[in-house]
């Protein structure tokens, strides 16, 4: 009988600690935009010295806003795919707009001068904007690079339709079974609802 009591207590301890894990590990977090929010426009300097705003794109149906940078290996791994997205979807009304959110004091490799060099080396077909003063990325809630926000232009403004990563394999495009950004833009172009609206990926923290 004594054994039974001890065992019962043990079982209770196990049950209690199993409960604790749910409580402790669930934390509320996350700021910035959610799906359905209206994204802010901006006026940011492009690598050609001209300022770019979303409102300049009168014919666009939306945008593939891509927070990216020079120094991050994950960003570099996706550069060719970002160019391919722009080439494919610019003509269809969804151009890529790349924004470097990093503070060059934290990462000298991400300076405006180095952005120009990298864009030229890779032959970027899209604007590569510098978030001077780092005012835009916190409004979007971008946490890392690369981090994609797909916006759809509506009467009310540019509505956030997708937040996340480009596809399901950063190492090898051919092994990516899911192409989240393409699927989302295709859906929007066909007037369908975006199925997968939110994805996660490892990325380099944006440095303020």
């Amino acid at each position, binding site marked *: 009988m004594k054994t*039974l009591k001890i065992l019962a207590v043990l079982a209770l301890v196990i049950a209690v600690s199993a409960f604790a894990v749910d409580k402790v*590990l669930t934390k509320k977090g996350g700021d910035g935009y959610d799906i359905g929010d209206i994204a802010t426009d901006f006026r940011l300097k492009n690598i050609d010295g001209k300022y770019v705003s979303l409102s300049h794109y009168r014919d666009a149906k939306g945008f593939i806003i891509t927070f990216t940078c020079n120094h991050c*290996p994950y960003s570099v791994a996706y550069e060719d795919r970002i160019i391919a997205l722009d080439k494919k979807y610019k003509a269809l009304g969804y151009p890529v707009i790349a924004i470097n959110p990093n503070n060059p004091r934290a990462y000298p490799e991400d300076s405006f001068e180095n952005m120009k060099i990298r864009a030229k080396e890779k032959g970027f077909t899209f604007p590569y904007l510098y978030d001077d003063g780092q005012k835009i990325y916190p409004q979007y809630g971008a946490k890392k690079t690369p981090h994609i926000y797909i916006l759809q232009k509506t009467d009310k403004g540019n509505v956030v339709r997708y937040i996340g990563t480009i596809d399901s394999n950063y190492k*090898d495009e051919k092994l990516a079974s899911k192409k989240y950004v393409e699927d989302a833009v295709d859906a929007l172009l066909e007037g369908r609802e975006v199925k997968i609206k939110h*994805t996660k990926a*490892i990325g380099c923290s944006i440095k303020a």
Partner: protein
Amino acid sequence: MMCRIICMGFMLLIFFTGCKGERQVTAITATKVFESKGIEVPVYDFENFEALLHIDDDKVRVINFWATWCKPCVRELPYFELINDRYTAKNVEVILVSLDLPSQVETKLIPFLEKQRIRSRVILLDDPNANQWIPKVNEEWSGAIPATIIYKGSTGNFYERSFTYHDLEKELKKVF
């Protein structure tokens, strides 16, 4: 008779839990082991790695997700090393989970570990389908690093942030 059956039931449960913990430890198999300059870095996919997040013994585990290219990660690494030095005898294990690209293990990661004389256990997590595994580490994790889990048994905390030594030690003591 009734008592016996109930007792058996509890014992099986406890036996199973205890056994599960041990089995999980041994069942972790590396897909590859990089070895150079006397430093070994085993590589895991998430399926194998996941068991490290749920070991049910009396050790406190400090699991830090980092990479050599991540400056804030590298900056806080000495604090994890210090925890490893000071708390190993107090039943704490530090595991540094590198998210470096496998192609850079020999060129960047191992030279870094050698130069910085890293003594904590270092493993490489190589699983490209991060959208599947990031939420399994923690629902709230955006995927940005550094990120850290401090846990013991089934109690623990997840942090998507950088640490000072003082803060890290404070959080560690919460789990003791």
